[in-house]
């Protein structure tokens, strides 16, 4: 039923005549009566929405979705942290190498002073070009800062998203802690497809950490 059809014209007329008569108490009571109707309608609407939501959540027994929330979402942050850490490590190695080349070039520049001037003149532009390129290599490492800032931001958003989903799931009466681990067969299916570097704590279980470990295992198998 629409809100408007619930408000009777006579109620409004009564309110109007109370006001015209200056009877504020009666007008107040009449106004309350009118707004209560409205509130009642609102509560009914809210109740219906809540029931809808509740029903939807009750139907939320898609185990795959729950599995994803429990196992995959926390992994996302861990994987992104791995990307930040490994790009930082790579940038740091590159910077160390570039710094050491810059140091060599400095020394070469000093040694150049001892060379006959024709030779020095020939070498100077080469050293200058090498220095300029070392600077380019260093500057290119700023990608690590820029991509790291982007990933940090994504992690904040993902974290909020994960918390909202967990909240929704617990409201629906599901208990993630009782959710079983992924079945061995679905894990194996993923592994056969290839799952990339094992960068999360959970994926490091049963993971061989070095070539030596891999060789040992294969050795035991007679390879």
């Amino acid at each position, binding site marked *: 039923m629409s809100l408007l059809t619930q408000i009777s014209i006579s109620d409004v007329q009564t309110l109007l005549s109370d006001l015209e008569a200056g009877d504020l108490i009666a007008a107040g009571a009449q106004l309350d009566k009118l707004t209560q109707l409205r509130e009642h309608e609102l509560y009914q609407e809210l109740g219906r929405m809540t029931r809808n939501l509740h029903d939807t959540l009750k139907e939320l027994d898609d185990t795959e979705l729950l599995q994803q929330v429990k196992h995959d979402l926390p992994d996302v942050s861990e994987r992104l942290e791995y990307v930040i850490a490994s790009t930082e490590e790579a940038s740091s190695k590159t*910077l160390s190498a570039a710094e050491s080349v*810059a140091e060599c070039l400095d020394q070469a520049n000093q040694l150049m002073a001892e060379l006959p001037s024709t030779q020095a003149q020939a070498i100077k532009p080469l050293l200058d070009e090498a220095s300029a390129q070392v*600077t380019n290599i260093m*500057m290119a490492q*700023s*990608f*690590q*800062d820029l991509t790291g800032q982007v990933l940090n931001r994504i992690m904040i958003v993902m974290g909020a998203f994960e918390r909202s989903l967990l909240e929704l799931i617990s409201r629906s009466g599901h208990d993630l802690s009782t959710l079983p681990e992924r079945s061995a067969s679905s894990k194996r299916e993923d592994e056969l497809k290839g799952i990339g570097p094992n960068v999360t704590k959970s994926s490091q279980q049963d993971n061989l950490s070095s070539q030596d470990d891999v060789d040992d295992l294969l050795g035991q198998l007679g390879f």
Partner: protein
Amino acid sequence: MQINRDMKILVVDDFSTMRRIVKNLLKELGFSHFDEADDGSTAWPMVQTGKYDFIVSDWNMPQMTGLQLLKNVRADEKLKATPFLLITAEAKRSQILEAAQAGVDGYIVKPFTAATLNAKIEKIFENVAKRAQAAE
């Protein structure tokens, strides 16, 4: 104009990669005295010692932003004249205006080049010299 290459510089960035890049570039430009801080909050007590002639800072850092660090510096009677350069990925018009209003001396958007850094530093210290002359 002649810039004092012996000045003490504080480099503030939460990413160690960027601190290192900035330090290397400053070294190439002939500067040799640097300290580092990984956040505005760790930089601020260092700045308060009054020993820095120049601050080069990132904007977006977890605890205290470079903008807040700049505001702190400008609000301190003893420190407020310290030249302050922001090197940041923040490049919205409103942000740049905000930094200008807070009294930044130079603003470099990442990624940047060595030539840009050099040009901004020269400009900053040219202005510092002009201000000193005007004050005389």
